[in-house]
Protein backbone atom coordinates (compact mmCIF):
# COMPACT_ATOMS: atom_id res chain seq x y z
CA UNK A 1 0.00 0.00 0.00
CA UNK A 2 1.16 3.50 -0.72
CA UNK A 3 2.44 5.14 2.48
CA UNK A 4 1.47 8.67 1.60
CA UNK A 5 -2.23 8.14 1.13
CA UNK A 6 -2.72 6.58 4.55
CA UNK A 7 -4.37 8.86 7.05
CA UNK A 8 -3.88 6.44 9.88
CA UNK A 9 -1.43 3.66 10.37
CA UNK A 10 -1.23 1.46 13.45
CA UNK A 11 1.94 -0.57 13.85
CA UNK A 12 2.42 -3.45 16.29
CA UNK A 13 0.03 -2.06 18.86
CA UNK A 14 -0.18 -4.06 22.09
CA UNK A 15 -2.48 -3.06 24.91
CA UNK A 16 -2.81 -4.94 28.19
CA UNK A 17 -5.05 -4.38 31.16
CA UNK A 18 -3.11 -5.18 34.30
CA UNK A 19 -5.49 -6.31 37.03
CA UNK A 20 -5.20 -8.27 40.25
CA UNK A 21 -6.84 -11.23 38.56
CA UNK A 22 -4.24 -11.32 35.85
CA UNK A 23 -3.21 -9.52 32.71
CA UNK A 24 -5.84 -9.10 30.04
CA UNK A 25 -4.27 -9.29 26.58
CA UNK A 26 -6.78 -6.94 25.01
CA UNK A 27 -4.90 -6.06 21.82
CA UNK A 28 -1.81 -7.83 20.58
CA UNK A 29 0.58 -6.81 17.77
CA UNK A 30 -2.12 -5.11 15.81
CA UNK A 31 -1.38 -3.59 12.42
CA UNK A 32 -3.91 -1.53 10.57
CA UNK A 33 -4.02 1.10 7.85
CA UNK A 34 -6.75 3.48 6.84
CA UNK A 35 -6.45 5.27 3.50
CA UNK A 36 -7.57 8.91 3.41
CA UNK A 37 -11.28 9.43 2.77
CA UNK A 38 -12.20 5.79 3.25
CA UNK A 39 -14.27 3.91 5.79
CA UNK A 40 -12.87 0.97 7.66
CA UNK A 41 -15.15 -1.51 9.37
CA UNK A 42 -13.80 -3.08 12.54
CA UNK A 43 -15.77 -6.27 13.09
CA UNK A 44 -15.72 -8.73 15.95
CA UNK A 45 -17.61 -10.06 18.91
CA UNK A 46 -17.72 -8.83 22.49
CA UNK A 47 -14.24 -8.69 23.98
CA UNK A 48 -12.40 -8.90 20.66
CA UNK A 49 -10.57 -5.65 21.40
CA UNK A 50 -12.33 -3.33 18.95
CA UNK A 51 -13.11 -0.59 21.40
CA UNK A 52 -9.70 -0.87 23.09
CA UNK A 53 -8.05 -0.34 19.70
CA UNK A 54 -9.90 2.88 18.95
CA UNK A 55 -9.53 4.15 22.49
CA UNK A 56 -5.78 3.66 22.06
CA UNK A 57 -5.95 5.87 18.95
CA UNK A 58 -7.77 8.56 20.91
CA UNK A 59 -5.67 7.84 24.00
CA UNK A 60 -8.62 7.73 26.26
CA UNK A 61 -7.78 4.37 27.76
CA UNK A 62 -8.00 4.36 31.55
CA UNK A 63 -4.49 4.04 32.94
CA UNK A 64 -4.40 2.09 35.25
CA UNK A 65 -5.36 -0.61 34.38
CA UNK A 66 -4.65 -0.14 30.65
CA UNK A 67 -1.05 -0.13 29.46
CA UNK A 68 0.04 0.49 25.90
CA UNK A 69 3.13 -1.72 25.79
CA UNK A 70 4.36 -1.32 22.25
CA UNK A 71 3.34 0.21 18.98
CA UNK A 72 2.91 3.36 16.99
CA UNK A 73 -0.27 5.14 15.99
CA UNK A 74 0.68 7.30 13.04
CA UNK A 75 -1.92 9.90 12.21
CA UNK A 76 -1.11 12.40 9.44
CA UNK A 77 2.53 11.34 9.66
CA UNK A 78 2.91 11.81 13.41
CA UNK A 79 2.97 9.23 16.17
CA UNK A 80 0.08 10.03 18.51
CA UNK A 81 1.50 7.84 21.26
CA UNK A 82 4.48 10.23 21.54
CA UNK A 83 2.31 13.30 22.02
CA UNK A 84 1.86 14.88 25.42
CA UNK A 85 -1.52 15.38 27.07
CA UNK A 86 -1.89 18.97 25.98
CA UNK A 87 -1.33 18.39 22.29
CA UNK A 88 -3.53 15.29 22.36
CA UNK A 89 -6.33 17.41 23.76
CA UNK A 90 -6.07 19.65 20.72
CA UNK A 91 -6.37 16.71 18.38
CA UNK A 92 -9.32 15.09 20.13
CA UNK A 93 -12.60 16.55 18.94
CA UNK A 94 -10.81 18.68 16.37
CA UNK A 95 -9.00 16.22 14.12
CA UNK A 96 -10.29 12.93 15.47
CA UNK A 97 -13.69 12.65 17.04
CA UNK A 98 -15.67 9.77 18.32
CA UNK A 99 -19.30 8.70 18.45
CA UNK A 100 -20.21 6.27 21.19
CA UNK A 101 -22.67 3.44 21.20
CA UNK A 102 -25.26 4.68 23.62
CA UNK A 103 -26.78 8.05 22.72
CA UNK A 104 -28.72 8.01 25.97
CA UNK A 105 -25.65 8.34 28.15
CA UNK A 106 -23.24 10.37 26.04
CA UNK A 107 -25.04 13.69 26.35
CA UNK A 108 -25.10 15.88 29.44
CA UNK A 109 -28.71 15.90 30.66
CA UNK A 110 -28.60 19.36 32.26
CA UNK A 111 -27.17 21.36 29.35
CA UNK A 112 -29.10 22.18 26.17
CA UNK A 113 -27.94 20.40 23.03
CA UNK A 114 -27.06 23.68 21.34
CA UNK A 115 -24.71 24.60 24.16
CA UNK A 116 -23.14 21.17 24.13
CA UNK A 117 -22.30 21.49 20.44
CA UNK A 118 -21.09 25.05 21.03
CA UNK A 119 -18.72 23.80 23.71
CA UNK A 120 -16.76 21.70 21.20
CA UNK A 121 -16.56 24.57 18.75
CA UNK A 122 -15.34 27.09 21.32
CA UNK A 123 -12.86 24.69 22.83
CA UNK A 124 -11.03 24.34 19.54
CA UNK A 125 -11.45 27.87 18.29
CA UNK A 126 -10.66 30.32 21.07
CA UNK A 127 -11.29 33.36 18.88
CA UNK A 128 -14.86 32.59 17.85
CA UNK A 129 -17.54 34.68 19.58
CA UNK A 130 -20.27 33.02 21.58
CA UNK A 131 -22.86 34.19 19.12
CA UNK A 132 -21.02 32.82 16.09
CA UNK A 133 -20.43 29.54 17.85
CA UNK A 134 -24.14 29.25 18.58
CA UNK A 135 -25.00 29.97 14.96
CA UNK A 136 -22.54 27.30 13.91
CA UNK A 137 -24.11 24.85 16.38
CA UNK A 138 -27.53 25.55 14.87
CA UNK A 139 -26.13 24.96 11.39
CA UNK A 140 -24.75 21.63 12.52
CA UNK A 141 -28.16 20.62 13.85
CA UNK A 142 -29.80 21.52 10.55
CA UNK A 143 -27.15 19.47 8.79
CA UNK A 144 -28.19 16.33 10.65
CA UNK A 145 -31.86 17.02 10.04
CA UNK A 146 -32.89 18.66 13.30
CA UNK A 147 -34.58 22.04 13.18
CA UNK A 148 -32.34 24.81 14.53
CA UNK A 149 -35.03 26.08 16.89
CA UNK A 150 -34.57 22.92 18.95
CA UNK A 151 -31.04 23.96 19.95
CA UNK A 152 -32.44 25.22 23.26
CA UNK A 153 -33.94 21.83 24.14
CA UNK A 154 -32.48 19.36 26.62
CA UNK A 155 -31.47 15.79 25.69
CA UNK A 156 -34.50 14.18 27.35
CA UNK A 157 -36.74 16.03 24.92
CA UNK A 158 -35.27 14.07 22.00
CA UNK A 159 -35.84 10.47 20.92
CA UNK A 160 -32.95 7.98 20.70
CA UNK A 161 -32.41 8.46 16.98
CA UNK A 162 -32.40 12.24 17.35
CA UNK A 163 -29.94 12.10 20.25
CA UNK A 164 -27.58 10.11 18.07
CA UNK A 165 -27.97 12.81 15.40
CA UNK A 166 -27.06 15.46 17.97
CA UNK A 167 -23.94 13.45 18.80
CA UNK A 168 -23.05 13.17 15.13
CA UNK A 169 -23.51 16.93 14.80
CA UNK A 170 -21.20 17.43 17.76
CA UNK A 171 -18.60 15.04 16.40
CA UNK A 172 -18.55 16.77 13.03
CA UNK A 173 -18.70 20.33 14.37
CA UNK A 174 -14.96 20.88 13.97
CA UNK A 175 -14.80 19.07 10.65
CA UNK A 176 -12.48 16.29 11.80
CA UNK A 177 -10.30 14.30 9.45
CA UNK A 178 -11.09 11.07 11.19
CA UNK A 179 -14.38 10.03 12.70
CA UNK A 180 -14.52 6.98 14.93
CA UNK A 181 -17.97 5.51 15.37
CA UNK A 182 -18.30 2.82 18.04
CA UNK A 183 -21.46 0.83 17.27
CA UNK A 184 -23.35 4.05 16.52
CA UNK A 185 -26.63 2.37 15.67
CA UNK A 186 -26.71 -0.66 17.96
CA UNK A 187 -29.07 0.98 20.43
CA UNK A 188 -31.47 2.12 17.71
CA UNK A 189 -34.42 0.50 15.96
CA UNK A 190 -33.90 -0.67 12.38
CA UNK A 191 -35.89 2.08 10.69
CA UNK A 192 -34.07 4.69 12.77
CA UNK A 193 -30.78 2.92 12.11
CA UNK A 194 -31.50 3.24 8.39
CA UNK A 195 -32.00 7.00 8.83
CA UNK A 196 -28.73 7.41 10.75
CA UNK A 197 -26.68 5.29 8.34
CA UNK A 198 -28.09 7.24 5.42
CA UNK A 199 -27.10 10.47 7.13
CA UNK A 200 -23.59 9.25 7.92
CA UNK A 201 -23.10 8.17 4.33
CA UNK A 202 -24.21 11.57 3.01
CA UNK A 203 -22.02 13.51 5.42
CA UNK A 204 -19.03 11.35 4.66
CA UNK A 205 -19.41 12.00 0.95
CA UNK A 206 -19.84 15.72 1.53
CA UNK A 207 -16.90 16.28 3.88
CA UNK A 208 -14.57 13.49 2.72
CA UNK A 209 -14.15 12.43 6.33
CA UNK A 210 -12.30 9.18 6.90
CA UNK A 211 -14.07 6.85 9.24
CA UNK A 212 -13.57 3.84 11.46
CA UNK A 213 -16.81 2.05 12.09
CA UNK A 214 -16.93 -0.48 14.88
CA UNK A 215 -19.75 -2.94 14.50
CA UNK A 216 -20.73 -6.54 15.02
CA UNK A 217 -23.23 -6.38 12.18
CA UNK A 218 -21.86 -7.55 8.84
CA UNK A 219 -24.90 -5.98 7.19
CA UNK A 220 -23.75 -2.52 8.23
CA UNK A 221 -20.24 -3.30 7.02
CA UNK A 222 -21.58 -4.31 3.61
CA UNK A 223 -23.49 -1.10 3.47
CA UNK A 224 -21.03 1.53 4.51
CA UNK A 225 -17.42 0.27 4.62
CA UNK A 226 -14.69 0.27 1.99
CA UNK A 227 -12.27 -1.85 4.00
CA UNK A 228 -12.88 -4.44 6.66
CA UNK A 229 -10.75 -5.75 9.52
CA UNK A 230 -12.04 -8.79 11.40
CA UNK A 231 -10.84 -9.01 15.00
CA UNK A 232 -10.72 -12.07 17.21
CA UNK A 233 -9.27 -12.19 20.74
CA UNK A 234 -7.18 -9.05 20.34
CA UNK A 235 -5.80 -9.75 16.90
CA UNK A 236 -6.80 -8.90 13.37
CA UNK A 237 -7.37 -12.24 11.69
CA UNK A 238 -8.38 -10.91 8.29
CA UNK A 239 -8.11 -7.57 6.51
CA UNK A 240 -9.11 -6.62 3.02
CA UNK A 241 -11.38 -4.44 0.93
CA UNK A 242 -15.11 -5.11 0.96
CA UNK A 243 -15.02 -7.12 -2.24
CA UNK A 244 -12.30 -9.43 -0.95
CA UNK A 245 -13.97 -9.90 2.42
CA UNK A 246 -17.47 -10.55 1.17
CA UNK A 247 -16.64 -12.57 -1.92
CA UNK A 248 -13.57 -14.39 -0.72
CA UNK A 249 -13.64 -14.62 3.08
CA UNK A 250 -10.61 -16.76 3.89
CA UNK A 251 -10.03 -17.02 7.62
CA UNK A 252 -12.05 -19.83 9.24
CA UNK A 253 -13.41 -17.33 11.79
CA UNK A 254 -14.63 -14.95 9.08
CA UNK A 255 -16.21 -17.85 7.23
CA UNK A 256 -17.80 -18.97 10.50
CA UNK A 257 -19.27 -15.52 11.07
CA UNK A 258 -20.94 -15.56 7.67
CA UNK A 259 -22.33 -19.06 8.24
CA UNK A 260 -23.92 -18.31 11.58
CA UNK A 261 -25.99 -15.24 10.71
CA UNK A 262 -29.44 -15.61 9.19
CA UNK A 263 -29.68 -13.74 5.90
CA UNK A 264 -32.92 -12.02 5.01
CA UNK A 265 -32.36 -12.32 1.28
CA UNK A 266 -31.56 -16.00 1.12
CA UNK A 267 -33.81 -19.01 1.30
CA UNK A 268 -34.01 -21.02 4.47
CA UNK A 269 -30.70 -22.55 5.48
CA UNK A 270 -29.48 -24.05 8.71
CA UNK A 271 -27.26 -21.88 10.82
CA UNK A 272 -23.84 -23.28 11.46
CA UNK A 273 -22.70 -21.89 14.79
CA UNK A 274 -19.07 -21.47 15.72
CA UNK A 275 -18.62 -24.03 18.48
CA UNK A 276 -17.35 -23.02 21.89
CA UNK A 277 -16.82 -19.58 23.36
CA UNK A 278 -14.49 -16.65 22.87
CA UNK A 279 -11.42 -17.40 24.97
CA UNK A 280 -10.75 -15.85 28.35
CA UNK A 281 -8.46 -12.88 27.59
CA UNK A 282 -6.41 -13.49 30.73
CA UNK A 283 -5.72 -17.03 29.65
CA UNK A 284 -5.45 -17.19 25.87
CA UNK A 285 -4.83 -20.45 24.05
CA UNK A 286 -1.35 -21.12 22.73
CA UNK A 287 -0.64 -20.97 19.04
CA UNK A 288 -3.46 -19.61 16.91
CA UNK A 289 -6.05 -18.12 19.25
CA UNK A 290 -8.90 -19.46 17.20
CA UNK A 291 -7.67 -23.07 17.03
CA UNK A 292 -9.86 -24.50 19.86
CA UNK A 293 -12.97 -23.43 17.92
CA UNK A 294 -11.63 -23.97 14.41
CA UNK A 295 -12.98 -26.88 12.37
CA UNK A 296 -9.76 -27.02 10.32
CA UNK A 297 -7.30 -26.89 13.20
CA UNK A 298 -4.32 -29.23 13.13
CA UNK A 299 -1.63 -30.11 15.65
CA UNK A 300 0.54 -27.29 14.38
CA UNK A 301 -2.16 -24.65 15.01
CA UNK A 302 -1.91 -25.22 18.75
CA UNK A 303 1.82 -24.51 18.68
CA UNK A 304 2.47 -21.71 16.23
CA UNK A 305 0.71 -18.38 16.21
CA UNK A 306 0.50 -17.72 12.47
CA UNK A 307 1.84 -14.55 10.91
CA UNK A 308 -0.40 -12.48 8.71
CA UNK A 309 -0.03 -13.42 5.04
CA UNK A 310 -0.98 -11.37 2.01
CA UNK A 311 -2.95 -13.79 -0.15
CA UNK A 312 -3.81 -11.26 -2.83
CA UNK A 313 -3.24 -7.55 -3.25
CA UNK A 314 -4.11 -5.98 0.10
CA UNK A 315 -5.95 -9.03 1.46
CA UNK A 316 -4.26 -10.25 4.64
CA UNK A 317 -5.14 -13.45 6.47
CA UNK A 318 -3.69 -14.77 9.72
CA UNK A 319 -3.97 -18.53 9.30
CA UNK A 320 -1.45 -21.32 8.83
CA UNK A 321 -3.56 -23.24 6.34
CA UNK A 322 -4.09 -20.60 3.71
Amino acid sequence: MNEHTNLLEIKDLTVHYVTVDGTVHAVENLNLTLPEGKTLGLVGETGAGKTTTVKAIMQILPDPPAKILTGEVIFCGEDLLKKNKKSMRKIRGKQISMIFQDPMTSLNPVITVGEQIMEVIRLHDKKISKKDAYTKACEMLELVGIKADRAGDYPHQFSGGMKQRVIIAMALACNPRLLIADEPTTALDVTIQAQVLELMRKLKAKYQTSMIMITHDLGIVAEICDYVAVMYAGEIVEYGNREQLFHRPSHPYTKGLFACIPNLMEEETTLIPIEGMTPDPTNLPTGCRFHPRCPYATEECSKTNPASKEIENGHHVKCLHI
Partner: protein
Amino acid sequence: MSENILEVRHLKKYFPTKRGLLHAVDDVNFSIKKGTTMGLVGESGCGKSTVGRLILRLTEATDGEILFYDDDIRKYDREKMRHTRRRLQIVFQDPYASLDGRKSIFESIAEPLQVQKIYQNKKEMEEKVYELMATAGLARRLANSYPHELDGGRRQRVGIARALALNPDFLVLDEPVSALDVSIQAQVLNLMEQLQEQMGLTYLFISHDLSVVKHISDEIAVMYLGQIVEKAECKDLFKYPSHPYTQALLSAVPIPSIDYHVDRIVLEGDVPSPINPSPGCRFAGRCRFCKEKCRHETPELKDIGNGHMVACHFVGEF
Protein backbone atom coordinates in the same frame (compact mmCIF):
# COMPACT_ATOMS: atom_id res chain seq x y z
CA MET B 1 -61.19 -29.32 19.34
CA SER B 2 -59.17 -27.03 17.20
CA GLU B 3 -55.49 -27.49 16.49
CA ASN B 4 -54.81 -24.06 17.96
CA ILE B 5 -52.98 -24.27 21.23
CA LEU B 6 -53.39 -20.57 21.89
CA GLU B 7 -55.77 -17.98 20.59
CA VAL B 8 -55.86 -14.34 21.52
CA ARG B 9 -59.02 -12.35 20.86
CA HIS B 10 -59.39 -8.58 21.06
CA LEU B 11 -56.54 -8.35 23.52
CA LYS B 12 -56.13 -4.87 24.97
CA LYS B 13 -53.85 -3.33 27.53
CA TYR B 14 -54.11 0.33 28.43
CA PHE B 15 -51.81 1.85 31.01
CA PRO B 16 -53.06 4.96 32.77
CA THR B 17 -50.47 7.75 32.70
CA LYS B 18 -50.52 11.39 33.74
CA ARG B 19 -51.01 12.47 30.16
CA GLY B 20 -53.76 9.99 29.36
CA LEU B 21 -54.24 6.36 28.43
CA LEU B 22 -51.26 4.62 26.90
CA HIS B 23 -52.53 2.13 24.36
CA ALA B 24 -49.77 -0.49 24.68
CA VAL B 25 -51.78 -3.29 23.08
CA ASP B 26 -54.88 -2.31 21.19
CA ASP B 27 -57.15 -5.05 19.89
CA VAL B 28 -54.72 -7.77 18.97
CA ASN B 29 -55.95 -11.07 17.51
CA PHE B 30 -53.99 -14.13 16.53
CA SER B 31 -53.82 -17.88 17.01
CA ILE B 32 -50.94 -20.30 17.11
CA LYS B 33 -51.09 -23.89 15.92
CA LYS B 34 -49.61 -26.61 18.07
CA GLY B 35 -45.95 -27.28 17.40
CA THR B 36 -45.37 -24.15 15.35
CA THR B 37 -43.63 -20.83 15.93
CA MET B 38 -45.28 -17.48 15.65
CA GLY B 39 -42.87 -14.58 15.24
CA LEU B 40 -43.92 -11.23 16.65
CA VAL B 41 -41.83 -8.36 15.26
CA GLY B 42 -41.84 -4.66 15.71
CA GLU B 43 -39.72 -1.79 16.97
CA SER B 44 -39.26 -0.73 20.57
CA GLY B 45 -42.46 0.40 22.21
CA CYS B 46 -44.79 -1.32 19.74
CA GLY B 47 -46.23 -3.53 22.49
CA LYS B 48 -44.76 -6.88 21.50
CA SER B 49 -43.30 -7.70 24.92
CA THR B 50 -46.53 -6.59 26.59
CA VAL B 51 -48.41 -9.14 24.47
CA GLY B 52 -46.04 -11.84 25.72
CA ARG B 53 -46.53 -10.83 29.34
CA LEU B 54 -50.32 -10.60 28.96
CA ILE B 55 -50.49 -14.17 27.67
CA LEU B 56 -48.86 -15.46 30.84
CA ARG B 57 -50.91 -13.05 32.93
CA LEU B 58 -47.75 -11.51 34.34
CA THR B 59 -49.56 -8.30 33.49
CA GLU B 60 -53.33 -8.35 33.55
CA ALA B 61 -55.02 -7.42 30.28
CA THR B 62 -57.53 -4.58 30.18
CA ASP B 63 -59.85 -6.53 27.93
CA GLY B 64 -59.97 -9.53 25.62
CA GLU B 65 -59.73 -13.29 25.76
CA ILE B 66 -56.71 -15.55 26.00
CA LEU B 67 -57.75 -19.06 24.98
CA PHE B 68 -55.33 -21.81 25.94
CA TYR B 69 -56.65 -25.07 24.56
CA ASP B 70 -59.97 -23.26 23.92
CA ASP B 71 -60.31 -22.21 27.54
CA ASP B 72 -60.12 -18.56 28.58
CA ILE B 73 -57.32 -18.39 31.15
CA ARG B 74 -58.26 -14.82 32.07
CA LYS B 75 -61.18 -16.32 34.00
CA TYR B 76 -58.95 -18.61 36.06
CA ASP B 77 -58.49 -18.01 39.78
CA ARG B 78 -55.07 -17.90 41.42
CA GLU B 79 -54.88 -21.59 42.15
CA LYS B 80 -55.95 -22.71 38.70
CA MET B 81 -53.63 -20.18 37.09
CA ARG B 82 -50.68 -21.41 39.15
CA HIS B 83 -51.40 -24.87 37.87
CA THR B 84 -51.70 -23.71 34.28
CA ARG B 85 -48.42 -21.84 34.45
CA ARG B 86 -46.66 -25.19 34.36
CA ARG B 87 -47.67 -25.39 30.76
CA LEU B 88 -47.06 -21.75 29.83
CA GLN B 89 -43.53 -20.49 30.33
CA ILE B 90 -41.39 -17.53 29.30
CA VAL B 91 -37.71 -16.91 28.51
CA PHE B 92 -36.66 -13.32 29.01
CA GLN B 93 -34.39 -11.14 26.95
CA ASP B 94 -31.64 -10.21 29.32
CA PRO B 95 -29.90 -13.23 30.80
CA TYR B 96 -27.94 -10.82 33.00
CA ALA B 97 -31.03 -9.51 34.73
CA SER B 98 -33.39 -12.48 34.76
CA LEU B 99 -31.39 -14.78 37.04
CA ASP B 100 -31.04 -14.40 40.79
CA GLY B 101 -27.40 -13.54 41.38
CA ARG B 102 -27.40 -15.23 44.78
CA LYS B 103 -28.67 -18.58 43.60
CA SER B 104 -26.42 -21.19 42.04
CA ILE B 105 -27.32 -22.55 38.63
CA PHE B 106 -28.62 -25.72 40.27
CA GLU B 107 -30.83 -23.75 42.65
CA SER B 108 -32.15 -21.54 39.86
CA ILE B 109 -33.21 -24.51 37.76
CA ALA B 110 -34.62 -26.39 40.77
CA GLU B 111 -36.72 -23.41 41.88
CA PRO B 112 -39.73 -23.97 39.58
CA LEU B 113 -39.76 -27.66 40.55
CA GLN B 114 -39.84 -26.73 44.22
CA VAL B 115 -42.47 -24.03 43.83
CA GLN B 116 -44.80 -26.42 42.05
CA LYS B 117 -43.89 -29.26 44.48
CA ILE B 118 -43.28 -31.71 41.66
CA TYR B 119 -40.95 -34.07 43.49
CA GLN B 120 -41.18 -35.34 47.05
CA ASN B 121 -37.90 -37.14 46.69
CA LYS B 122 -34.73 -35.04 46.69
CA LYS B 123 -32.78 -37.54 44.64
CA GLU B 124 -35.36 -37.53 41.86
CA MET B 125 -35.36 -33.76 41.75
CA GLU B 126 -31.58 -33.68 41.44
CA GLU B 127 -31.75 -36.12 38.57
CA LYS B 128 -34.31 -33.89 36.83
CA VAL B 129 -32.16 -30.77 37.25
CA TYR B 130 -29.12 -32.51 35.76
CA GLU B 131 -31.27 -33.82 32.93
CA LEU B 132 -32.53 -30.28 32.23
CA MET B 133 -28.99 -28.94 32.25
CA ALA B 134 -27.99 -31.57 29.71
CA THR B 135 -31.02 -30.72 27.56
CA ALA B 136 -30.07 -27.05 27.52
CA GLY B 137 -26.45 -27.89 26.77
CA LEU B 138 -24.98 -26.95 30.15
CA ALA B 139 -22.09 -28.97 31.53
CA ARG B 140 -22.80 -30.68 34.84
CA ARG B 141 -19.79 -29.06 36.46
CA LEU B 142 -21.54 -25.66 36.24
CA ALA B 143 -24.23 -26.74 38.71
CA ASN B 144 -22.61 -24.95 41.62
CA SER B 145 -21.54 -21.86 39.67
CA TYR B 146 -23.26 -18.53 40.09
CA PRO B 147 -24.66 -16.43 37.23
CA HIS B 148 -21.80 -13.90 37.34
CA GLU B 149 -19.36 -16.67 36.49
CA LEU B 150 -21.19 -17.48 33.26
CA ASP B 151 -21.16 -15.72 29.90
CA GLY B 152 -24.36 -14.50 28.23
CA GLY B 153 -24.90 -17.60 26.11
CA ARG B 154 -24.70 -19.97 29.07
CA ARG B 155 -26.92 -17.74 31.18
CA GLN B 156 -29.54 -17.83 28.47
CA ARG B 157 -29.30 -21.63 28.51
CA VAL B 158 -30.04 -21.51 32.25
CA GLY B 159 -33.11 -19.39 31.45
CA ILE B 160 -34.19 -22.00 28.92
CA ALA B 161 -33.60 -24.90 31.31
CA ARG B 162 -35.73 -23.13 33.95
CA ALA B 163 -38.53 -22.56 31.47
CA LEU B 164 -38.46 -26.22 30.42
CA ALA B 165 -38.39 -27.56 33.98
CA LEU B 166 -42.15 -28.08 34.22
CA ASN B 167 -42.57 -29.68 30.78
CA PRO B 168 -44.51 -26.78 29.27
CA ASP B 169 -46.46 -26.93 26.01
CA PHE B 170 -46.05 -23.30 25.16
CA LEU B 171 -43.12 -20.92 25.51
CA VAL B 172 -43.01 -17.16 25.10
CA LEU B 173 -39.49 -16.29 23.96
CA ASP B 174 -39.01 -12.58 24.53
CA GLU B 175 -35.95 -11.53 22.53
CA PRO B 176 -34.02 -14.59 23.71
CA VAL B 177 -30.94 -13.97 21.57
CA SER B 178 -30.78 -10.17 21.35
CA ALA B 179 -28.17 -9.82 24.08
CA LEU B 180 -25.88 -12.47 22.59
CA ASP B 181 -23.00 -12.35 20.15
CA VAL B 182 -23.74 -13.72 16.69
CA SER B 183 -21.81 -16.96 17.03
CA ILE B 184 -23.54 -17.69 20.34
CA GLN B 185 -26.88 -16.51 18.95
CA ALA B 186 -26.73 -19.27 16.32
CA GLN B 187 -26.04 -21.88 19.02
CA VAL B 188 -29.08 -20.80 21.06
CA LEU B 189 -31.36 -20.58 17.99
CA ASN B 190 -30.37 -24.08 16.94
CA LEU B 191 -31.04 -25.33 20.46
CA MET B 192 -34.52 -23.78 20.43
CA GLU B 193 -35.33 -25.45 17.11
CA GLN B 194 -34.02 -28.79 18.27
CA LEU B 195 -36.05 -28.65 21.51
CA GLN B 196 -39.18 -27.75 19.60
CA GLU B 197 -38.78 -30.81 17.43
CA GLN B 198 -38.00 -33.17 20.32
CA MET B 199 -40.64 -31.95 22.75
CA GLY B 200 -43.34 -30.70 20.39
CA LEU B 201 -43.17 -27.19 21.84
CA THR B 202 -45.08 -24.20 20.55
CA TYR B 203 -43.34 -20.82 20.55
CA LEU B 204 -44.28 -17.19 20.48
CA PHE B 205 -40.99 -15.69 19.39
CA ILE B 206 -40.78 -11.96 20.10
CA SER B 207 -37.95 -10.07 18.42
CA HIS B 208 -36.98 -6.88 16.68
CA ASP B 209 -34.53 -8.73 14.45
CA LEU B 210 -36.22 -9.66 11.19
CA SER B 211 -33.48 -12.00 10.02
CA VAL B 212 -33.76 -14.05 13.20
CA VAL B 213 -37.56 -14.08 13.09
CA LYS B 214 -37.54 -15.17 9.48
CA HIS B 215 -35.18 -17.99 10.33
CA ILE B 216 -37.23 -19.45 13.17
CA SER B 217 -40.91 -18.67 12.47
CA ASP B 218 -43.69 -20.44 10.62
CA GLU B 219 -45.97 -17.46 10.80
CA ILE B 220 -45.16 -13.81 11.46
CA ALA B 221 -47.14 -10.89 12.84
CA VAL B 222 -45.81 -7.36 12.46
CA MET B 223 -46.80 -4.90 15.17
CA TYR B 224 -46.86 -1.13 15.04
CA LEU B 225 -48.00 1.02 17.96
CA GLY B 226 -50.00 -1.65 19.75
CA GLN B 227 -51.66 -3.16 16.70
CA ILE B 228 -50.91 -5.94 14.27
CA VAL B 229 -50.56 -4.37 10.83
CA GLU B 230 -49.69 -7.50 8.89
CA LYS B 231 -49.77 -11.22 9.53
CA ALA B 232 -48.82 -13.99 7.14
CA GLU B 233 -46.93 -17.19 6.67
CA CYS B 234 -43.23 -16.55 6.92
CA LYS B 235 -42.52 -17.09 3.21
CA ASP B 236 -45.43 -14.93 2.05
CA LEU B 237 -44.52 -12.06 4.32
CA PHE B 238 -41.00 -11.81 2.97
CA LYS B 239 -42.02 -12.42 -0.62
CA TYR B 240 -45.03 -10.13 -0.71
CA PRO B 241 -44.80 -7.62 2.14
CA SER B 242 -48.02 -5.66 1.68
CA HIS B 243 -48.30 -3.11 4.45
CA PRO B 244 -46.23 0.04 3.80
CA TYR B 245 -44.71 -0.31 7.29
CA THR B 246 -43.63 -3.90 6.68
CA GLN B 247 -42.14 -2.86 3.37
CA ALA B 248 -40.12 -0.10 5.00
CA LEU B 249 -39.08 -2.34 7.87
CA LEU B 250 -37.83 -5.07 5.54
CA SER B 251 -35.94 -2.62 3.37
CA ALA B 252 -34.21 -1.11 6.41
CA VAL B 253 -32.42 -4.30 7.42
CA PRO B 254 -28.76 -4.21 6.36
CA ILE B 255 -27.94 -7.32 4.34
CA PRO B 256 -24.57 -8.97 5.06
CA SER B 257 -23.69 -9.26 1.40
CA ILE B 258 -22.50 -6.84 -1.24
CA ASP B 259 -24.36 -8.57 -4.06
CA TYR B 260 -27.83 -7.29 -3.33
CA HIS B 261 -29.09 -3.86 -3.98
CA VAL B 262 -32.08 -3.00 -1.84
CA ASP B 263 -34.10 0.08 -2.64
CA ARG B 264 -34.32 1.49 0.80
CA ILE B 265 -37.49 3.15 1.98
CA VAL B 266 -36.29 5.56 4.64
CA LEU B 267 -39.11 6.42 7.01
CA GLU B 268 -39.31 10.00 8.15
CA GLY B 269 -39.65 10.84 11.79
CA ASP B 270 -40.06 8.63 14.83
CA VAL B 271 -42.75 6.32 16.13
CA PRO B 272 -45.51 8.57 17.50
CA SER B 273 -46.63 8.42 21.12
CA PRO B 274 -49.03 5.63 22.04
CA ILE B 275 -50.78 7.90 24.54
CA ASN B 276 -54.29 8.79 23.35
CA PRO B 277 -53.56 7.87 19.72
CA SER B 278 -55.60 9.78 17.17
CA PRO B 279 -58.17 7.89 15.13
CA GLY B 280 -57.27 6.58 11.72
CA CYS B 281 -54.32 4.45 10.67
CA ARG B 282 -51.56 4.75 13.26
CA PHE B 283 -48.91 4.62 10.60
CA ALA B 284 -50.48 7.43 8.55
CA GLY B 285 -48.06 10.12 9.75
CA ARG B 286 -45.02 8.27 8.40
CA CYS B 287 -46.61 6.53 5.42
CA ARG B 288 -45.51 7.33 1.86
CA PHE B 289 -48.93 6.55 0.50
CA CYS B 290 -51.03 8.30 3.12
CA LYS B 291 -54.35 9.61 1.80
CA GLU B 292 -57.16 11.58 3.41
CA LYS B 293 -59.10 8.45 4.37
CA CYS B 294 -56.12 7.08 6.36
CA ARG B 295 -56.30 9.97 8.80
CA HIS B 296 -59.90 9.33 9.80
CA GLU B 297 -60.73 5.66 9.45
CA THR B 298 -58.90 2.89 11.24
CA PRO B 299 -58.17 0.09 8.75
CA GLU B 300 -59.25 -3.44 9.68
CA LEU B 301 -57.08 -6.51 9.21
CA LYS B 302 -58.25 -7.96 5.88
CA ASP B 303 -57.44 -11.31 4.32
CA ILE B 304 -55.83 -10.74 0.94
CA GLY B 305 -55.61 -14.46 0.21
CA ASN B 306 -54.05 -17.53 1.79
CA GLY B 307 -54.50 -16.15 5.29
CA HIS B 308 -52.29 -13.16 4.54
CA MET B 309 -53.80 -10.38 6.66
CA VAL B 310 -53.09 -6.70 6.12
CA ALA B 311 -54.46 -3.64 7.89
CA CYS B 312 -54.31 -0.98 5.20
CA HIS B 313 -57.07 0.80 3.25
CA PHE B 314 -55.12 0.80 0.03
CA VAL B 315 -53.49 -2.58 0.08
CA GLY B 316 -52.53 -3.75 -3.38
CA GLU B 317 -52.97 -0.30 -4.87
CA PHE B 318 -49.31 0.72 -4.73
